[in-house]
């Protein structure tokens, strides 16, 4: 690990002041950042410790939604009674990720910003455009079993590893941030992430020193909620494909659908056209397959991840069958 200067922030304002200087990273849980620092994939010159900031509350919003402090550990968020009762898809996604120890440490804000698990990103002996811009992407013609099938570019085919963020995307989460100049802004999760294009090293729209302080959820959408994750082990493994789904059926027709996908894109994936195709339809495999056709119209495999294309279809259909129950 490269050495660094360390400072513990006692307020969000102090944190963003410290975070605005050069090559500085915030540390909250540290479960991803320190892992990457040990491998010298991340080499910050300064670390601002934000783990003691008073951002640990989960509160009901005036609109019937939820306001979650960015330092709330994943374990606490998953077990929070407001979340288990009203946003079970979020609890389920959190509980499907990592291990008990990691969930006790990893923060809500940090979970959004996890780096990819691409093998080549992790191997500093080989090129990687995300780690060393312009050096190349060995994953395209290499081992790419865990890589993305949607939203990839010539420069990067890495997938986003988070489970939590997939549920957050299905729930239309909004991130509240504080910038070094004192401005606050609200960023929809739909605008947070960037496609890799030819700058895969830039993963979000967050600016230097910009700190996530809260996550806001609107009132839960109408419908039943589920998170279905397919992975190589039954526990403690990243998703090959996952689906966060909220679906409502009324009078034999689908009236609401919110669907986000993990493991298949460089960001938690969501496409309005997939949901629109389901609204008004009679639940059943014909409608479900039509939705999957739209989702996967532009899907592209790279060899060892080709299986994700049929797997994403089957996982989507399975979760839609589950949520539409007898109506299907």
């Amino acid at each position: 690990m490269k050495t660094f200067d360390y400072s513990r922030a006692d307020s969000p304002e102090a944190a963003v002041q410290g975070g605005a200087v050069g090559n500085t990273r915030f540390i909250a849980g540290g479960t991803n950042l320190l892992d990457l620092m040990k491998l010298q994939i991340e080499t910050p010159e300064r670390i601002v410790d934000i783990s003691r900031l008073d951002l640990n509350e989960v509160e009901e919003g005036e609109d019937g939604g939820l306001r979650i402090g960015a330092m709330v550990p994943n374990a606490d968020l998953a077990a929070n009674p407001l979340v288990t009762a009203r946003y079970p898809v979020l609890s389920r996604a959190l509980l499907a990720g990592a291990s008990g120890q990691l969930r006790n440490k990893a923060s809500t804000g940090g979970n959004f910003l996890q780096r990819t698990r691409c093998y080549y990103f992790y191997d500093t002996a080989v090129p990687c455009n995300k780690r060393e811009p312009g050096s190349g992407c060995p994953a395209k013609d290499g081992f790419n079993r865990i890589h993305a099938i949607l939203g990839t570019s010539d420069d990067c085919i890495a997938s986003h590893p988070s489970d939590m963020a997939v549920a957050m995307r299905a729930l239309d989460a909004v991130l509240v941030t504080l910038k070094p100049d004192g401005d606050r802004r609200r960023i929809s999760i739909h605008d947070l992430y960037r496609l890799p294009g030819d700058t895969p090293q830039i993963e979000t729209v967050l600016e230097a020193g910009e700190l996530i302080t809260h996550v806001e959820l609107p009132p839960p959408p109408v419908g039943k909620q589920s998170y279905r994750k397919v992975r190589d082990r039954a526990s403690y493994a990243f998703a090959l494909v996952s689906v966060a789904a909220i679906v409502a059926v009324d009078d034999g027709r689908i009236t609401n659908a919110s669907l986000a996908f993990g493991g298949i894109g460089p960001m938690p994936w969501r496409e309005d056209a997939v949901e629109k195709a389901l609204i008004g339809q009679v639940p059943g495999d014909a409608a479900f397959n039509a939705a999957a056709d739209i989702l996967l119209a532009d899907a592209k495999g790279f060899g060892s991840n080709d299986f994700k294309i049929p797997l994403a279809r089957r996982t989507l259909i399975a979760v839609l069958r589950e949520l539409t129950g007898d109506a299907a």
Partner: protein
Amino acid sequence: MAWERKVGKAMHFTINGKNYDADPDIRTSLLDLLREHLNLTGSKKGCDHGQCGACTVLVNGRRINSCLTLAVMHQDDEITTIEGIGTPDNLAPLQAAFVKHDGFQCGYCTPGQICSATGMLNEAKQGWPSHVSERLEGDVELTDDEIRERMSGNLCRCSAYPNIVDAIREVAEEPA
């Protein structure tokens, strides 16, 4: 704001109810602090990347991977290691159960397993659900599936898993 590097001034820690001073490099993980600076070598280093759980300790009663956190971040915390859970003359119930059920072969993962199980039993008592829980709310019944899921962050390369589950189940079933 104030920045620290090779601080040159002591860091203060509370571990197993005792006070410790140390002057480690700023990069030192909590695990390396325990093992290399304070001679508390019960916590083990397996992967050093949060994948194996051998380094599990309790911080303010919660189980974490001590390899994936910086010592400097934990100066105001109550840290409990395997040395603080029981002694050879006075085994904690989980330790006695691991002996009784032969919940290990080489023993390298055992301190982490026991610290993790200590934290896990407390989580279950608080009603925290798991990935395999049918319901997200209500009391937790620690079935074997629940124990396995909740302990999935602790690997045992000797594969003593069935006996580890037996040991933890026995303690979980004891009246509080």
